């Protein structure tokens, strides 16, 4: 059991011990880093490839179709066929485009989403870089992607690209605020920004003492998850690439592998944000019986599935709905969640639960009432043009 739990850690140890026999000692730390990087560099694109397959399959099933089932058994080789197709496609750069920026944007969008993987605790002792400020690093690096999206939209010299990029900026900056506010509660309770420490703080109760089971944790989890769906531009928050409105948004002018890189960033982001939500609120790799990395994978997979499920269910937000949802609902909810977490931290158990629940329940009902839903169709009165 213990060996199964530490399977990948042991594997790395074996590689390092083997290398010790012929490598000089000062080079070994570099090799250790290289091994971690290689693992992530293999794992991440593979995940992305099969997330595309999963998405097509799940959405197909939701729409009573089969989804890809021609290439390989269950269509499992479909991502490889897609990859070959993308690589052999013509790479078109618009005549009026800023060539350098146009080329750099897809690279700049993928690199941050790959960097996100470095602080994710994939299992017990399986964080590639155990930073003390892991969470801060995660949030900071994930925001760089927005800049790259704007680079792409600006450099294309296309009105749709620019509109999409502008939308992306407005949306991502708006949703970053409640995202960070929801994370603050975890930092308050744990007292650390290190992802390892956050997971360790959720140990106990046979590995089921996750933060979601507290009132502030549940609300924080919902806020974080909703905002992360928005941060990776997925439906229903995909106005930056709204097909029916602005062709393909910021990646209108991209083709071939560059286009695929934007998609890769989206899927890697979706995976990384799901993994981070699992780390922060669902106890990371904590869990009974199964090995730690399997628990982590399972939780992340469930969240990714939920993201796909959301895409299969909902239409796109309107821009004004999107903004008012972020600023009028999620933002105040995040603030009251911080209050609830503070009260939880400072009062003894039964009282803390009651107080926190009431604060959150009241603010939820209050905010729902203050934000009227549905369209009010009133007769328009023209005062001057009659």
């Amino acid at each position, binding site marked *: 059991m213990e060996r199964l739990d530490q399977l990948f850690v042991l594997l790395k140890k074996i590689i390092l011990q083997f290398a010790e026999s012929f490598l000089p000692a000062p080079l070994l730390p570099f090799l250790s880093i290289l091994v971690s990087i290689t693992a992530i560099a293999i794992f991440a694109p593979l995940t992305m490839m099969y997330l595309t397959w999963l998405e097509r399959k799940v959405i197909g099933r*939701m729409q*009573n*179709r*089969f989804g890809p089932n021609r290439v390989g058994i269950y269509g499992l080789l479909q991502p490889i066929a897609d990859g070959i197709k993308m690589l052999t496609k013509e790479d078109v750069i618009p005549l009026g485009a800023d060539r350098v920026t146009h080329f750099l944007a897809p690279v700049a969008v993928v690199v941050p989403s790959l960097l996100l993987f470095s602080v994710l605790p994939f299992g017990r002792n399986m964080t590639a870089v155990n930073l003390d400020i892991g969470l801060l690093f995660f949030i900071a690096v994930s925001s760089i992607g927005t800049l790259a999206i704007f680079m792409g939209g600006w450099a294309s010299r296309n009105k749709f690209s620019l509109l999409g990029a502008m939308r992306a900026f407005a949306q991502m900056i708006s949703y970053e605020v409640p995202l960070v506010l929801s994370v603050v509660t975890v930092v308050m309770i744990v007292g650390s920004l290190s992802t390892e420490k956050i997971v360790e703080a959720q140990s106990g109760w046979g590995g089921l003492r996750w933060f979601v089971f507290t009132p502030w944790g549940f609300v924080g989890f919902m806020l974080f998850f909703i905002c992360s769906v928005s941060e990776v531009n997925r439906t229903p928050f995909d106005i930056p690439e709204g097909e029916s409105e602005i062709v393909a948004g910021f990646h209108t002018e991209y083709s071939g592998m560059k286009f695929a890189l934007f998609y890769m960033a989206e899927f890697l982001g979706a995976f990384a944000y799901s993994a981070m939500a699992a780390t922060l609120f669902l106890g990371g790799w904590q869990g009974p019986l199964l090995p730690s990395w399997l628990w982590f994978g399972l939780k992340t997979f469930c969240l990714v599935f939920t993201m796909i*499920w959301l895409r299969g269910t*909902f239409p796109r937000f309107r821009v004004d709905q999107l903004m008012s949802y972020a600023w009028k609902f999620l933002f105040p909810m995040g603030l009251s969640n911080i209050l609830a977490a503070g009260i939880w931290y400072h009062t003894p158990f039964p009282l803390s639960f009651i107080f926190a629940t009431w604060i959150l329940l009241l603010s939820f009902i209050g905010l729902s*009432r203050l934000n009227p*839903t549905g369209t009010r169709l009133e007769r328009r009165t023209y005062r001057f043009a009659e």
Partner: protein
Amino acid sequence: MSYGLGILKGMSVTLKQFVESYTKKGSIVTVQYPEERREDVERFRNFPILVYDEKPEAPRCVACDICAKECPPKCITIVRDRDEQGRGLQKPKVFDIDLSVCMSCGICEEVCPFDAIFMDHQFELSAYDRMESLNYHQEKLLKPNSYLHQIRPTDATQIDAKLKAKEEAKKKTQPGTTA
């Protein structure tokens, strides 16, 4: 003010469809075409065929050229066959239908006074060459009457009865002559 319950309701619908697509048979309506096929419908009509009764050398077609004249996109080419003296025979020498021009309207079938041309059920007519292999010649178009019975039994029996009645009437009016 539904407090987000509408979201859960919507998501339960899609989840139900997702689960049912695995558990409930017949919930996926896709027909996996090359392996599975839709059931053949008798009324289905596509590209025309020429029908012969006993042998392909003697088709029902008498080369009257009506179908070629009526054909809206003019895809039928008919040349009447002639004997050694140069007299016209009642059968076509050339009967070509260009598939790339044909629009499967079925007017040729409707106007044919000799019930010689019918719409087929065959729809897998793709070819690698778009000039010669899409221009269907007489040999390729000729199909026996039994084939018509196979694909369109109702129509074929009616037409057979009609032709037989015609034959009988002919025999009565012109005794002694062979048809």
